[in-house]
């Protein structure tokens, strides 16, 4: 039993596993992000990832027993990343209308809402947030128009767009926040992202500018970041070992 475990959790089969996973990753690059993501959300693939996380955990634990701490950090880190990802997927599957996971809100200036929507036209209700968002004002700023823009007869590219919102959480006075691209706002377990914006007309045919905010809750995020940290620490440790052993023996003992 112990011999079998030694053989199957050693570096030789692990190398083959790495290459098999690499081919799998290449295969998933072809169908495009959306279909690959949908494919990975299937129960079979989730079970496969769970199994992989378990394997990483076992290898990490064995590395601790053998005092190979670089290997331990690396493998436990990988296990944490995969487990965190699975937690996020689990939350998405078990999201309820009063505790939604992911959705978008489309707003014009002055509008207030706590509802999230999904679908290509954002017309399917996902649920209600534990706070409400009021769009005070949406801003679009462009770069200065240069000669290239004038020659092409177009506006200068957009430099920044942002939504100034007022967040109202129960038991707290309302406060103002700016949601920018690359600067999400964090409220009660949810990140609010500036996703996109566009032009439309209202019922009377007057032009309006709307903003699209995306709201996401991911309970596995901290575990994923913790996993990244462990994994990176392990890799630094591993690199340090490779430099240190140089000159003593080119054929060191396998882990």
């Amino acid at each position, binding site marked *: 039993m112990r011999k079998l475990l030694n053989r199957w959790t050693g570096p030789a089969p692990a190398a083959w596993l790495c290459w098999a*996973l690499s081919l799998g*990753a290449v295969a998933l*690059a072809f169908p495009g992000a959306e279909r690959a993501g949908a494919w990975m959300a299937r129960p079979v693939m989730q079970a496969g990832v769970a199994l992989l996380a378990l394997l990483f955990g076992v290898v990490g634990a064995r590395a601790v027993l053998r005092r190979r701490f670089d290997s331990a950090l690396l493998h436990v880190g990988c296990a944490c990343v995969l487990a965190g990802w699975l937690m996020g997927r689990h939350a998405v599957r078990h999201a309820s209308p009063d505790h939604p996971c992911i959705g978008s809100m489309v707003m014009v200036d002055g509008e207030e809402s706590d509802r999230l929507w999904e679908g290509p036209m954002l017309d399917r209700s996902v649920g209600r947030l534990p706070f409400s968002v009021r769009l005070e004002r949406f801003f679009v700023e462009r770069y200065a128009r240069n000669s290239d823009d004038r020659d092409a007869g177009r506006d200068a590219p957009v430099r920044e767009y942002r939504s100034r919102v007022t967040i109202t959480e129960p038991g707290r006075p309302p406060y103002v926040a700016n949601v920018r691209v690359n*600067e999400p706002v964090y409220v009660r377990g949810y990140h609010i992202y500036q996703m996109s914006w566009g032009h439309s007309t209202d019922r009377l045919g007057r032009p309006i500018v709307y903003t699209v905010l995306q709201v996401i809750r991911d309970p596995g995020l901290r575990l*994923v970041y913790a996993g990244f940290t462990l994994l990176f620490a392990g890799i630094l440790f591993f690199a340090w070992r490779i430099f240190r052993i140089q000159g003593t023996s*080119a054929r060191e003992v*396998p882990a």
Partner: protein
Amino acid sequence: MMVKMTVQGGLIYLTLTLFAATVIARRGGWRAIGNAFWGTGFVAAVASVAWRGLHTGHPPMQNLFEFFLCMAAALWPLSVWSRWRNGLDTTVQDALLGMLILVPAGFVFGEEVRRLPPALQSALFIPHVGSYVAGYVLLARAALMALPLFRRDVADDRMRQAETASRQTAVVGFVLLTLGLFLGSLWGKICWGHYWQFDPKEMWSLATWLVYAGYFHERLAHGVRAPRTLAALLWIGLLFIVLTLTWINLSRLFAGMHNYA
């Protein structure tokens, strides 16, 4: 393709010429002359970075053009380090690599500061792309250093030397690849809302990372008993990198979230 008729362009083309002269001189057997060209090329590369910094008034690390200039200036110290640490002479391969880096800087990237779309305006832009570029350069060096491992007639200690040098270079490249991947997923979370989206470029980068992870496992499992396998793995990794940079970037087959052109 465009030629830069500026001081900056002149410095880049001077560096390119000196790197090419290094390769020609060394191949022709004029060792000292080749080394002189290599050293002068480094001075020209540093001058090119310094000029950029003085000209724009900011540290020259804020876009890919500037980053490529820095990488070209880093090659001479890297080759000196390889000689000191591993006793390897990597001048010719480093000069070739330097030319490969400077061609996009000299002929493809624009000198003017690009007007970035909102998604690219992030403090993580340079660390993310920079880790990858530096990692790719080191992994390319590792593959070149592993070339003697393919040969049957090479002496045992010479082979060991090449193996150690290539592995040490590869591990630093691997650290940078990992850092680039993490910074990328962190940025993905901040910008797109998720740290992993199964974007084609993400998948190819992960595949590349896994090839190198497999290489390190193989080395642990079998030591240097199969040197040709180790060298072949480093070259497969490099093939993945070249594919990521060319096919995945340019083909419409892999349209995804990394398309900011």
